[in-house]
């Protein structure tokens, strides 16, 4: 489908008009181009021919939209908003997206789009993730960015945003695909991350600027997330979740799927464990993931780095070093799912040599863990281990 015009810049304003007509989707747009050659010719097409190409209803919308539409002025308005318009026939349109079964006719971009020649991985997962998922999403984002891999995701709460923020903090390239207009930050609480991606990395959407987020807009955008990536990593997902929709689309697009396994008792890991059961790749550590990506990513392998080596080591090193018996006992009882202070107290006091333990000592130790960044307070008196 790759076809370019000699003066693409001249065509873009007309392509933008085509995309702005409601009801004219990718199929009709391509049919129009087939018939008229260029977006400009389609714009100038005589009414009779247009009617033939689009059918009565869509031709009517087209004409209504065309009335009062100043092609150049509208396009300039878009550019003044800092939004780049990329039609699927533009040479700058991401190559990976060209390959998927249903590429968007056009993309609206703030910042840049993923580079074709650099490796690119989508990190996705639950919005409400556990401390385990949060920790891993962060490590993944950081390690991928350090290895020169572009991190693509949906800017959503939870795994998406966490991995993207981590990648951005590593000064890596990360791209957010939105389920609303590219000029709208959704969720609003991610404004800082959004601004950051405008400057480095990018934000993309196939929806017209100004489009408010609606539930039905998100599943189609998921195909763009996986479409822009060489491989998809799932950190935590429930059964029957939006994340699994993305996985289905990724499979359709022939992308590799890697999943972080979890315990069989954690609902948040049911999706991942299920996918592994069906044959998805398993992520044993961040290093393991990079190794697998290097083997599986064809022409675009991630760089070898030592930047993340320390982190993997930290995952396994003896966190016990220098801990007192009390601290060690409590550390062992802490988990990646929240445990309450009382629960910890009762369990720890039952341990060997802990008969004299007081609730106050438990609180003191937990506070120390929190201040040292080893543990985190989730909700009032609940604590989790930090990965």
């Amino acid at each position, binding site marked *: 489908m790759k076809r370019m015009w000699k003066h693409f810049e001249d065509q873009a304003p007309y392509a933008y008009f085509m995309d702005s007509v409601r009801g004219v989707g990718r199929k009709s747009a391509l049919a129009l181009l087939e018939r008229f050659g260029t977006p400009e010719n389609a714009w100038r097409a005589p009414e009779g021919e247009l009617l033939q190409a689009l059918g009565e209803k869509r031709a009517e919308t087209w004409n209504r939209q065309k009335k009062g539409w100043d092609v150049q002025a509208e396009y300039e308005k878009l550019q003044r908003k800092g939004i780049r318009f990329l039609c699927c026939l533009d040479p700058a349109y991401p190559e990976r997206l060209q390959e998927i079964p249903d590429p968007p006719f056009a993309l609206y971009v703030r910042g840049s789009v993923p580079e074709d020649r650099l490796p690119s991985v989508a990190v996705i997962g639950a*919005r*409400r993730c*556990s401390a385990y998922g949060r920790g891993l999403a962060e490590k993944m984002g950081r390690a991928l960015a350090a290895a020169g891999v572009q991190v693509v995701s949906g800017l*959503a*709460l*939870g795994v998406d*945003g*966490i991995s993207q923020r981590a990648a951005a903090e590593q000064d890596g390239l990360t791209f957010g695909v939105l389920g609303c207009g590219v000029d709208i930050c959704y*969720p609003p*609480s*991610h404004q800082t991350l959004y601004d950051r991606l405008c400057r480095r990395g990018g934000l993309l959407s196939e929806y017209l600027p100004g489009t408010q987020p609606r539930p039905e807009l998100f599943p189609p955008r998921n195909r763009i997330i996986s479409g822009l990536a060489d491989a998809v990593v799932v950190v935590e997902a429930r059964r029957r979740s939006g994340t699994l929709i993305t996985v289905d689309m990724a499979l359709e697009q022939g992308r590799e799927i890697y999943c972080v396994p979890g315990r069989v*008792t*954690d*609902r*948040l890991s049911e999706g991942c464990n299920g996918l592994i059961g069906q044959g998805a790749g398993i992520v044993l550590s961040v290093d393991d993931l990079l190794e697998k990506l290097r083997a599986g990513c064809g022409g675009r392998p991630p760089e070898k780095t030592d930047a993340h080596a320390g982190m993997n080591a930290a995952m396994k090193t003896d966190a016990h070093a220098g801990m007192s018996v009390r601290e060690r006992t409590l550390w062992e009882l802490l988990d990646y*799912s*929240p445990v*309450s*202070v*009382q*629960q910890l107290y*009762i369990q720890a006091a039952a341990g060997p040599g802990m008969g004299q333990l007081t609730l*106050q*000592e438990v*609180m*003191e130790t*937990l*506070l*120390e863990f*929190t*201040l040292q960044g080893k543990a985190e*307070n*989730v*909700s*009032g*008196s*609940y604590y989790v281990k930090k990965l």
Partner: protein
Amino acid sequence: MVISRNYGSYCYPADFMLVAAMNPCPCGYYPDLNRCVCTEAEVRRYQGHISGPVLDRIDLCVEAPPLDIRSLGGREEHRSSREMRGRVETARRAQEKRFAGTGYRFNSEIRVRDMQKYCALGPEEERMLEQFTQRQETSARSYHRLLRTARTIADLEESEEIRRTHLAEALCYRVMDTKYRKGNG
């Protein structure tokens, strides 16, 4: 409580103890993600019903985790109300003694200018508090409330100085869910 506006100043009586209870989320199971069915936004909205400034004035936040039914009839040690009453009375006597002739009755009344006098911390405790406030973005108000709470905990333990464990306990009662308050995902 004195409220001053351009049309005058009013003095309202506002010396009371507030005891309140709430659920952690609409379904009641948060933060057990295996059972909680609320979305993050729902939890945030629910917990947001108590505004930050109000929460800032609550000194002791404790969550009551679900009880295992089997433990209800159990043999676990519990402190009796009589024993607790005894400790509270001891703490009150300590305060009476400390504040004799000052006009204060309780730790909660200690003014900021007298903080140093009654709630002085050792260097180690000082450091711990500093670390905590840096992490938690503590307001000046809650900083002082923390010290008063630690003072009371020390009194309950019949300790002249505020020790590390007393301060730690006071800090633990303050760590409310900042994640949902800030909404940083």
